[in-house]
């Protein structure tokens, strides 16, 4: 059977590693490097290859969670990660310089994949900076035919991440009964 994958993406420090860690059933494999080696001011560590976690279902099946590396020089890995993906979780750090620009960049970069599957957006670090607001993010989609779930989340909080993934799955199929 094909691999079931959910892909987590977003800029450096958006909370991808943390989110996958929060909801994975197995300890997360990380390939982080200390930020000092890479960029200043980007948090204590950054992921240089990718994050990987697993949700194990009651029937034993596994959902694989992949986090894209934040560093741009690893963008070549994106295509490989996307193959067979069910949908995309995009995390945006609200306290970054221009979070809207970050969002537009990733929407563009993953345009084709999102068109074929679905996307849910989590805005992190709103406890540090509450502007732009969730409504401001929605406003960015006003002139498009997309209307994705956009939630304020704390990547460290399991129930926040879990709700975001649920919204992604319901966007794929609201007929799911549960």
């Amino acid at each position, binding site marked *: 059977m094909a691999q079931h994958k959910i892909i987590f993406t977003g800029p450096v420090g958006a909370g991808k590693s943390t989110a996958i860690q929060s909801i994975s059933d197995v300890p997360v494999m990380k390939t982080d490097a200390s930020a000092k080696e890479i960029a200043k001011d980007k948090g204590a560590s950054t992921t240089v290859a990718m994050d990987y976690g697993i949700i194990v279902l009651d029937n034993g099946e596994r959902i694989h969670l992949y986090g894209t590396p934040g560093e741009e020089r690893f963008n070549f890995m994106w295509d490989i990660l996307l193959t067979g993906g069910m949908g995309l979780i995009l995390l945006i750090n609200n306290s970054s310089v221009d979070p809207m620009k970050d969002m537009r960049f990733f929407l563009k970069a993953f345009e084709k994949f999102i068109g074929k599957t679905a996307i849910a957006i989590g805005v992190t670090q709103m406890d540090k900076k509450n502007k732009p607001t969730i409504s401001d993010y929605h406003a960015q989609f006003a002139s498009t035919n997309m209307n994705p779930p956009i939630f304020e989340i704390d990547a460290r909080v399991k129930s926040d991440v879990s709700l975001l993934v649920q919204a992604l799955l*319901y966007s794929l199929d609201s007929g*799911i009964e549960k």
Partner: protein
Amino acid sequence: MTNRSESLSVALHGMDSRSIKTMTLFLERLCRNAAVVALNEQDAQIDIFDNDSTVSKNLLATHLQGVIQKPVIVLSLQGFEYKDVISLAKPLKKPDDMLAALKQIKKRLDKQSLRKSGDKTLVKPLVPRKKEEVVSIIEKNEPVSLPIVQNVTEELREQIIEEESHEQIIEQKPCVQIDEIIELESNTLRSFVYDEDESKKIAKHQTAMLLDENVFNQYIGTVDDVDVNDPSQFENAHYDPAAYYQGVVQNAINTCKKKNQNFLLETHWNLLFLKPRTEEVLFDKSYEELKLFAGIRLKNNYKKKSVSFLLNPFVSDTINIGNALNRFESMETFMWKLACWTSMGRYPKGIDYRKPVYLKHWPNFTRLLITPHALRIAAMLVLNPSTMGNIAQALKIKPQYVFVFISAAYAIGLAGQGARFSSSLVSALTKKRSLNEVLLLETLMEKLHGGSS
């Protein structure tokens, strides 16, 4: 920068979201993560109180009367002398004082972990003092409203200045007064049992709360004069928000936003403090009481007692409320919840059950009360407007779950009707999927649902 794993963790008590934000940034940027704000108060190694807000004063008074388990730092304008409590002068201008305090505490904690005595308390337990004594020390400082941190970073300063510049002194006279008749005797409300633990649990619930069908009736409640789930009774399955506390709060929110100043909405039983600049409210009673109050029809009753609502401008940013468990929460979170408890499975007057309803966009579910099937309803409605009955059919759920969701979304301006969208008949969004895929999605959903509540 301090390695995060070496950081001390602190809990911030009685501060509104803006103060918390400022403190978080202060610790992170200026104190270079020497301390971080703990996700969970219980996990924190240090308790920090602001002794100039009334809410915090109460918390501090209660705290000092108990056995002190952890080091305490008090931020105060006029200094605060209390045995073993570290006092820092406000507003914090430079990180030096804070860093020195943290260093001192760290030393103490390290020593204690070396000693590894069986004694669990982190500092020498203080002998609990008498209440009057504690209160008299705390009350030395009059409540004032001043930023906790001053001139921290450019970004922070801008943010603070932007918000402070709106401050202005205003005449304190009632500007709205609503007298309505209430159905119940006043003492009916007073006698409700105040369950401290329950309210603590809910008041602290910053994240979403998931309800499933089993607890809906108990938690949301139902009406008994109409069967909202019987399509032939849909005509009568509505309620008028304006006839309930919901409508009064809605008006108060509109007023305070229009005037852009703090307001206090008072009744004999409760207070609602509204802060338009941070879009926050603080309700002074338990949610149990809010829920009961929400269900009382205020209009069109010719009986007995009258409830009057007083809506007044309020100059300060803090307010003296008796219940230390209450927290500020966003207006949206509060209105959403209030609408659920007023609706009790009915839909709001103003929505025609025969016409399609639209949903502008997904609600910010992680910060809202999640009624049964709310995510599925939202997923369906954002794609296509649809009548409420149609959604219930397509999702094979009871209409009451659609009605309560629409009531909440309507209350925060997300749902509505009109020319905005063309009507169309919809079915649940179901792509052609193999049985395997469907099963997989269902199992995954079941798991996530269980894991997040």
